[in-house]
């Protein structure tokens, strides 16, 4: 189980994580998950989620030991059932009277920070490493400030204040995370995070210039056509085409910039992470390689009607694991799980459904 990366095996060397899953092995798990989900009308999807997560956690190797995912299919299923029932009731109520939809929307907004907090906590508590569970001690108030206000600030500033949002969010998540009774600590500096924003911002500006240029050329062309007395319906066609080009252009530019930013922030946050005040973590994702993997994964998955999805998922998991390393300082000692009950999966299932935003 020796997987040191640095020259020599000196103590205090950074040691990389590994991912031992393979695409062919995961393909079997994935296709059976999909098949059983279909033939059980979706009920099996809860158990499918557990098998999927156990596969990915159980193949992520850090210092020779793997992670384990402990949620049960029944837990997930009950969580999903409650969320589903809730969504059905909300939709019926809002159909009866518009005022109800206003009330339920406000109620959900008020409950959202609590749901975020419980969702993170559930996911932390069903994760273990070396037989010791993780825990999350964040509060709903913290979630309100870091997640809610953070994303609002980032959105309203068109991304210019995104580094603040990144800092708040990651501090909330990781500074409240515990491995057994050992705390995590991150301190991504705003200045460094702005460094991560430089390339994405340049990409957006450049993309905007190029798109604007295309529009200007197209408009100039249209005027020339008009002057020549060409039928104006050609103009309509070109306008529709132009609108689509701009739409997809903006989508692609923002998507690409987002990937680059995400990779850079991941590096900054993880490289500022300490466990128990002394064990250092490090992440050295290559931004270009990360973006390439993410984009080519999407393309390959779409081109194969989803059948290459297992390969894509394993590929990304392997890259992320191999680019993460830890340096143990002194003796870790014995660590103990530090809480009693895991809690219900409702909040985590609600959040994972909301990630996919549509009403039934």
């Amino acid at each position: 189980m020796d997987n040191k990366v640095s020259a020599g095996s000196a103590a205090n060397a950074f040691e990389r994580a590994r991912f031992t899953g393979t695409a062919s092995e995961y393909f079997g798990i994935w296709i059976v998950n999909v098949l059983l989900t279909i033939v059980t009308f979706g009920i099996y999807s809860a158990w499918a989620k557990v098998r999927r997560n156990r596969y990915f956690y159980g193949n992520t190797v850090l210092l020779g030991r793997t992670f384990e995912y402990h949620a049960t299919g029944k837990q997930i299923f009950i969580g999903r059932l409650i969320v589903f029932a809730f969504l059905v009731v909300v939709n019926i109520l809002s159909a009866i009277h518009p005022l109800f939809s206003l009330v339920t929307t406000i109620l959900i907004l008020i409950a959202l920070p609590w749901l975020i907090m419980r969702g993170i906590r559930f996911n932390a508590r069903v994760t273990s490493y070396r037989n010791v569970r993780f825990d999350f001690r964040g509060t709903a108030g913290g979630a309100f400030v870091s997640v809610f206000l953070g994303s609002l600030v980032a959105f309203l500033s068109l991304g210019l204040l995104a580094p603040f949002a990144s800092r708040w969010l990651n501090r909330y998540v990781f500074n409240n995370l515990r491995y057994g009774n050992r705390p995590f600590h991150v301190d991504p500096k705003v200045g460094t995070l702005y460094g991560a924003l430089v390339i994405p911002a340049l990409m957006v500006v450049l993309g905007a210039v190029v798109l604007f240029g295309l529009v200007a050329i197209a408009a100039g062309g249209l005027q020339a056509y008009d002057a020549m007395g060409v039928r104006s319906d050609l103009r309509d066609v070109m306008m529709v085409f132009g609108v689509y080009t701009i739409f997809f252009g903006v989508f692609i530019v923002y998507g690409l910039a987002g990937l680059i930013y995400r990779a850079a922030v991941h590096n900054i946050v993880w490289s500022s992470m300490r466990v128990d005040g002394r064990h250092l973590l490090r992440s050295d994702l290559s931004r270009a390689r990360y973006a390439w993997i993410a984009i080519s994964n999407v393309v390959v998955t779409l081109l194969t009607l989803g059948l290459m999805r297992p390969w894509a998922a394993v590929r990304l998991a392997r890259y992320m694991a191999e680019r993460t390393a830890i340096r143990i300082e002194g003796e870790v000692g014995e660590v103990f799980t530090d809480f009693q009950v895991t809690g219900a999966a409702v909040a985590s299932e609600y959040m994972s459904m909301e990630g996919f935003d549509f009403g039934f």
Partner: protein
Amino acid sequence: MVSDGETIAKGEWYPPHSSGAVPARLLSRGGRLFAVNEEKLALSDGTVRQVSFTPRVGSIPRRAVFADGSVFESMDNDAIDAFLRSGGRSGWVHRLEEFHPRIFVFAIAVVLLAIGIYRYALPVLVKVAVFVTPPVVSEMMSYGALNTLDTTVLSSSSVAEVRQAEITDRFRQVAANAEGGAGRYTLNFRDGGMIGPNAFALPDGNIVITDQLLELARDDNEMIAAVLAHELGHVEYKHSLRQLYRAAGVAGLVMLIAGDIGSGVEDILTQGGGLLALSYSRGAEAEADRRSVELMRKAGMDPVAIARFFDVLEARLGDHSRTSMLSTHPGTPERKEAILEYNKTLQPD
């Protein structure tokens, strides 16, 4: 000392809720399981029934959890499987997942099932959803949509009131035979602005026609009536609601089946679902075309007046295109043919 048991697997043993692992072996003897250390001292023991094994997933480490919460963990999945099989316990899900020719059969089955659901189950679900949706929902949707359009692209009509009155009169005659009678439908005149020559129906019975379309029709008000009859058909068949549910249904299927498709793909598939849902509107357009023929016939106007509209479209937009995957409207020549055909079947001969 536990010396004479049968070794099941080698691995590590963890005390309850602790990371303090020691090398260990799992032994079975006389219906009991023991985790023993290298000195062959028992660390945990319990009857076979008291020990729970985690189900096998791929080749990730396997855990045997004793009643006191202590854990024996091993990489030797095959050995543990062999032991469990001899005791009658086995993981059938894992055996399905193993790399075996039948996996390809599963893949084909999944593809066929997905196509089957899309083709046959989804339309039924959409029908049920449309059926149970109370009218107030479409009223709210329409109210919001018209408001948004009015504040963004549409502005008030500049068509002469005389002409508006003439068209409204024809509209009433056509709508009189539509479901719910003329009182259920309202005709709105607007300047189309960016959207140009257009007519569209909102699910609550509000129908909008743009000045640009009237201009395109010159003074052929009968043809306008045919276009409006087509829009009435959309309202009667609840096409917009259907399309909405269809898009939601496709998105739901993608989420349910693919599960972990990853955020990027998820977004694209939802968009793609919407795009696919649009292909439905080809059937919807044909349905509305036929309704136009029926309503015009009942109102005593030229049943195939809408065909003239297609001629105008063709002449102006040069639309000779055949139906393609991405178009929301079938090619006009095709539509015209279909209408003339349909009118013949209605002809009392």
